[in-house]
C-alpha cells in the first residue's frame, strides 16, 4: 500500500456526514428540476390550448375602420354633405415614448405652435395609453409624405388617410344639417349604439346638430375591421387582409330642400338677421329653410378655437341660433288672416264696416293705426289689403281670444311639427285658458289683450316655419298640411305632409281671406304691391306684410325705427304664396330688427326667393311663355337707409303700431 494512510484516517465522520448531506442536495436539485418539468408539462401540454388563445389575442388585433358617413343630398340629388380624404397625423402615448418630445419633433414638419402643443398634451393626459390622439388633421400631401418618410425614426407616430366631413355649400345649410364633431366623454354611454368601440376611433365623428344629429345612426353605417398583427406596444406589424371585415357606408339622407333656393335665400338675407322658409303648398315639402346670419359648418368639423367660438356666440345677430325654428317672433300683421278667419267663423259679417281715423280710443288709451291719417271706412277685405289695425282691434275685441286661438292652432301656430330634426320652439297662442294657467302674475284675460292679439302682437308668437305652414295651409285651402324636411333615408321614402285632416274653415271664408292677400300684392294700393311683382307673366304672388314691434311706443315721441339701436328696431315680416290661381309655393320671411317695414325689408326678398322657386318648377316655366322683364330692383334697399318714397310705394312707416 503506497498510499499514505492519512487519506483513510481522513475518511472520518465529517466525510460521511457530507456524503449523506450531498445526496440530499442532489435529491433536492433533482426534485426541484422535476417539479419545474412537471409545471412545464402542465402549462405546455395540458393548458397549451388556453395559452395559445391568449397568445393569439395578444398577437392579433382587429383595428376598427370607421365607415364612410352617409351623404346628405337635396331633393334633386345635389350633395349637401359628403366626405373627402383627410391626411391625419396620429400619435400614441406608451410607456416608452413621451408625447411632449414627439410633438416638438413634429413641429418641424407641421405647424404646431406652443399653445396647440400644450392643448394636445392635456388631451394626452386624458387619453389612455395606446389610444392614438389626432395631432393634426387635413395635412397637405407634402406634410403627409414628409412625416411618412421619417416614420421609422418615430415609432409612436402614424400618418394615415381617413375621411373628413365636408359641407360644399358652407353656411347655407348649417342650421338644418348641423355638423359633426369629435366624440365627447358625455356622448359615450354604457349600452346602445353610443357604447360601441368605434366612437373612440380618432377619425370618428358624431352628429352634433340638425340632420347630422337626428339621423346620426343612419348616417354612421357599419363599422369595418382590419385584422393586424401587433406588438406589445400595440404597434401594427403586419396586415392580414384575409381577416378584414368591410365597412359599410352610412345611408343617404335626402332632404326636401332645394340647393338653389336655399343658397339664394341666404344671399338675399345679406347682413340681416332672420329666416326664410319656403314650403310646397301641395305636398308640404320644405324647399328652403334658412336662418341668417349663418356659419360655416366646416369650421366646426375641425374644431373651433375658443376665439372663433366666442366670436360666433357673442355676435349680437346670433348666427348659432336657428331663427327659422328656434326663434319666435310676434307675427304682427301677418296674423291678420288668422284673425279674419276666426271672425268669419265667429259669424262676423265681412261687409260690416269699421271707420278708421288713425286711432281708436279704448280702455283709457288710444290704439293707433300704423297709418296715422287713417284708412276711413273699411270692410274686412279692405282691412286686409290696407293692413288696417283699427279694424282688427275692434273685430278681435268683439269675438274674444278663444275664437282666434282656435283658428291660429288650425293654421299651425303654437305647435312643433315632426320634421325629423329637433329644435323647434312652439311659441305662444294666447287664449283665456292659456293665460289662466300659464301667466301666474296676471291670469285674467283683459279686453286689451284681445285688442293687440287681433293684430298679431301680445300673447302670440311664432317661428318662421309656423308662418310658412300657415301660409301654405291658407294657400292650399283644404288640408292641415304638415311640413316635411326629410324626403327619404337610405332610399326609404318618409311619410308625406299631405295625408292630413282638412282645415276646419269653410271654403268660402278661405277664399275671402286669400282674396285679401291677393289684393295686398296685386291691388295697386295694397301694402306690398310694388315689392310683390314677380315679373313672371300671369304667375302672380299673394302676400301679407307684417311689422312687429319689440318695444312699447307708449310715450315715445319718435317712433321711427331707423334712429334706435339695432336690438330695438321692429321686426319685419312677409308671408306669401304663388301662383295665386293654383298655389304651389308658400314663403315666410322674417327680418329681425329690420327696422323698415314688412313691405320694404321682407317682401322684396320673398319675391326674389319665390322667383327662384317658381323658375325651377317645370310646370310654371311652361306657363311663362314670355316672361316680362325684371322689375326695377332698386327697391331692395341697402340696410339702414330710407326707402325711396315713390308714388305707388306705401308710406315709410309700414309698421302696425299698437
Amino acid at each position, binding site marked *: 500500500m*503506497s*498510499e499514505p494512510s*492519512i*487519506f483513510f484516517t*481522513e475518511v*472520518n*465522520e*465529517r*466525510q460521511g*456526514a*457530507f*456524503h449523506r*448531506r*450531498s445526496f*440530499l*442536495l*442532489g435529491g*433536492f*436539485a*433533482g426534485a*426541484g*428540476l422535476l417539479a*419545474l*418539468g412537471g*409545471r*412545464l*408539462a402542465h*402549462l*405546455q*401540454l395540458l*393548458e*397549451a390550448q*388556453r*395559452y*395559445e388563445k*391568449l*397568445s*393569439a389575442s*395578444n*398577437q392579433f388585433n382587429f383595428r376598427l375602420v370607421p365607415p364612410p358617413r352617409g351623404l346628405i343630398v337635396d331633393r334633386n340629388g345635389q350633395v349637401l354633405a359628403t366626405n373627402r380624404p383627410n391626411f391625419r397625423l396620429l400619435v400614441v402615448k406608451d410607456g416608452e415614448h413621451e408625447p411632449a418630445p414627439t410633438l416638438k419633433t413634429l413641429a418641424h414638419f407641421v405647424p404646431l405652435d406652443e399653445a396647440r402643443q400644450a392643448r394636445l398634451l392635456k388631451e394626452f393626459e386624458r387619453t389612455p395609453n395606446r389610444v392614438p390622439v389626432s395631432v393634426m388633421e387635413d395635412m397637405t400631401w407634402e406634410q403627409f409624405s414628409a412625416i411618412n418618410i421619417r416614420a421609422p425614426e418615430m415609432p409612436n407616430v402614424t400618418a394615415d388617410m381617413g375621411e373628413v366631413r365636408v359641407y360644399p355649400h358652407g353656411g347655407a345649410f348649417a342650421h338644418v344639417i348641423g355638423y359633426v364633431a369629435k366624440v365627447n366623454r358625455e356622448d359615450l354611454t354604457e349600452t346602445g349604439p353610443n357604447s360601441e368601440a368605434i366612437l373612440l376611433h380618432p377619425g370618428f365623428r358624431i352628429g352634433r346638430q340638425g340632420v347630422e344629429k337626428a339621423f346620426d345612426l343612419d348616417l354612421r353605417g357599419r363599422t369595418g375591421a382590419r385584422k393586424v*398583427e*401587433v*406588438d*406589445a*406596444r400595440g404597434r401594427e*406589424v403586419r396586415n392580414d387582409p384575409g381577416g378584414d371585415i368591410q365597412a359599410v357606408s352610412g345611408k343617404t339622407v335626402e332632404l326636401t330642400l332645394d340647393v338653389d333656393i336655399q343658397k339664394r335665400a341666404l344671399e338675399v338675407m345679406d347682413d340681416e338677421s332672420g329666416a326664410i322658409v319656403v314650403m310646397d303648398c301641395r305636398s308640404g315639402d320644405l324647399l328652403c329653410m334658412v336662418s341668417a346670419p349663418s356659419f360655416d359648418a366646416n369650421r366646426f368639423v375641425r374644431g373651433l378655437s375658443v376665439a372663433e367660438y366666442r366670436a360666433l356666440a357673442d355676435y349680437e345677430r346670433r348666427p348659432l341660433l336657428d331663427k327659422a325654428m328656434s326663434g319666435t317672433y310676434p307675427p304682427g300683421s301677418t296674423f291678420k288672416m288668422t284673425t279674419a278667419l276666426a271672425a268669419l267663423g265667429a259669424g262676423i259679417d265681412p261687409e260690416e264696416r269699421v271707420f278708421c281715423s288713425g286711432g281708436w280710443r279704448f280702455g283709457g288709451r288710444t290704439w293707433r293705426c300704423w297709418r296715422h291719417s287713417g284708412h276711413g271706412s273699411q270692410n274686412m277685405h279692405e282691412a286686409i289689403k290696407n293692413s288696417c289695425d283699427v279694424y282688427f282691434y275692434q273685430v278681435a275685441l268683439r269675438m274674444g281670444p278663444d275664437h282666434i286661438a282656435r283658428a291660429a292652432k288650425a293654421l299651425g301656430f303654437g305647435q312643433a311639427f315632426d320634421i325629423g330634426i329637433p329644435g323647434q320652439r312652439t311659441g305662444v297662442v294666447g287664449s283665456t285658458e292659456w293665460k289662466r294657467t300659464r301667466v301666474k302674475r296676471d291670469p285674467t284675460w283683459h279686453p286689451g289683450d284681445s285688442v293687440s292679439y287681433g293684430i298679431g302682437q301680445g300673447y302670440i308668437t311664432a317661428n318662421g316655419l309656423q308662418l310658412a305652414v300657415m301660409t301654405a295651409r291658407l294657400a292650399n285651402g283644404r288640408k292641415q298640411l304638415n311640413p316635411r324636411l326629410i324626403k327619404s333615408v337610405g332610399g326609404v321614402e318618409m311619410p308625406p305632409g299631405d295625408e292630413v285632416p282638412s282645415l276646419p274653415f269653410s271654403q268660402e271664408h278661405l277664399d275671402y281671406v286669400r282674396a285679401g292677400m291677393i289684393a295686398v300684392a296685386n291691388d295697386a294700393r295694397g301694402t306690398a304691391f310694388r315689392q310683390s311683382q314677380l315679373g313672371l307673366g300671369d304667375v302672380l304672388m299673394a302676400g301679407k306684410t307684417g311689422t312687429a314691434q319689440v318695444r312699447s311706443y307708449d310715450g315715445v315721441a319718435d317712433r321711427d325705427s331707423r334712429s334706435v339701436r339695432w336690438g330695438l328696431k321692429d321686426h319685419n315680416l312677409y308671408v306669401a304664396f304663388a301662383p295665386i290661381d293654383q298655389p304651389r309655393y308658400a314663403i315666410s320671411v322674417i327680418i329681425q330688427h329690420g327696422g323698415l317695414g314688412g313691405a320694404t325689408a321682407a317682401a322684396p326678398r320673398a319675391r326674389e326667393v319665390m322667383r327662384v322657386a317658381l323658375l325651377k318648377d317645370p310646370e310654371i316655366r311652361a306657363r311663362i311663355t314670355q316672361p316680362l322683364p325684371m322689375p326695377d330692383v332698386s327697391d331692395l334697399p341697402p340696410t339702414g337707409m330710407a326707402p325711396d318714397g315713390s308714388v305707388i310705394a306705401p308710406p315709410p312707416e309700414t309698421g302696425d303700431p299698437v
Partner: protein
Amino acid sequence: MTMSALRRPGERDRLVVKFTQIDWTFCIALCLLAGVGSLMMFSVAGSSWEPWAGPHLFRFGICFALMIALAMFDVRVWFALAYPIYGIGLALLVAVELVGDTRMGATRWLDIGFMSFQPSEVMKVGIVLALARFYHGISADDARLSWWLLIPAAMIAAPVLLVAHQPDLGTAMLIAMTGAAVVVLAGLSWKIIGAAVISFAAAVPIMVIFVMHEYQRKRVMTFLNPENDPSGSGYHILQSKIALGSGGFFGKGYGLGSQSQLNFLPEKHTDFIFATLAEEFGFLGCALVLALFAAVIFMALRTASLAHSHFGRLAAAGVTATFTLYVLINGAMVMGLAPVVGVPMPLLSYGGTVMLTVMIGWGLVQSVRVHRYSEVTSGKGAFV
C-alpha cells in the same frame, strides 16, 4: 495512467496533467447551455448577433478561459485566500453602503473608475469559500451542534443584512440560502434545521408586513394574484405563462415566438429567456435544457464528493448549491411559481456580472476536481 500520475506528487503538479483532469464533459454541458442562450438571443433580436447573442458568446468565451485558468490554481491557494476574499467582499459591501451609486432606488453599485460592479456578487463566492474554510477546521461534532456555530451564523448574517439594506432582497436571500446550504452540508443537527425551517415559515408574514419595502410587498401580492393587475406588475408573470403555455410540445418554431418577437414578453433576453426558449422550442426543448442543467449539477456534486479535503468538498458543493438555487428560482419565477425577484437563469440569461460569478464558481469546482488529492492542512479554529 492518469490516476497514478496524479498520485505522484511531482507528476500531478505538471500543468499538462492538471489540464487532463478537468471535467471536459462538464465543460461541454456548460458550452451547450451558453450556446442555447446565445441561440435564443439571436432569435429575439430578429436573427441578429447584435445586440445580445454575439456579446453573450464572447463573454462566455472569456469566462470559460478564466474558469480553466482558475482550475489550475491549487485548492490550497483557494483555501489560503478564502478569508481574505470574504473580508474584501464585506469591506466592499460596507463601502457601497457609504459611497455607492444609487440606481432605481437601490444602492448596489460601486463605481471603480473604469467600470461599476455589484460587490454582492463577490460575496456569492466569498461566503462559500469562507464557510468551507471554517468547517474545514472544526470536527463533525462541533459542526453538528456547538457554540462554534455562532461564527458561521455571523459570517452569513453580516453580508445578508448589508445586501438586504441596499435593498436587494433577491441577492440577500440567495446569499443566505447558499450559506445555509453549506452549513447543512457540513452536518448541522437536524433539530436546528427543523427549528430554523419552522421559525422561517413563521417569520415570512412578519417580514412581508413590517420589513419589506413597498415595491417588494407589491411584487409578493402580485405573485399571489397576477390576474388582478394584468397590465401592471402582474403583466410579467402572465405574459411569461402565455409564452410558455402557447409553446406546446414542439414549440412555435425558431424565430416564430410571437410573445417574445412582438415584445409581449418582458426581459425576454435576460430573466425571461427561459420563456423565450419554451415558446419557440416547446416542452421538448425545455426538457432537454433542464436535463442539461441537471447534468451540470450532478457532475459538480460528483466532483465535490471526490475531493479528499473537507474544504474542497464543501466549497464545490456550496458553489453547486448556489447554481442550483439560481436555476430553480428563475425557473419557478418564469413558470409563475415564485414572485418576480430578478434572479437570472445562469448561462442562458444575458448579463456579464452573473456569468462572471458563475464561471468563477465553476473554476473553483474544477480546481477542487483537479486537485482532489491535495492535502489541506487543518488547524482547528485557525483563521489562516
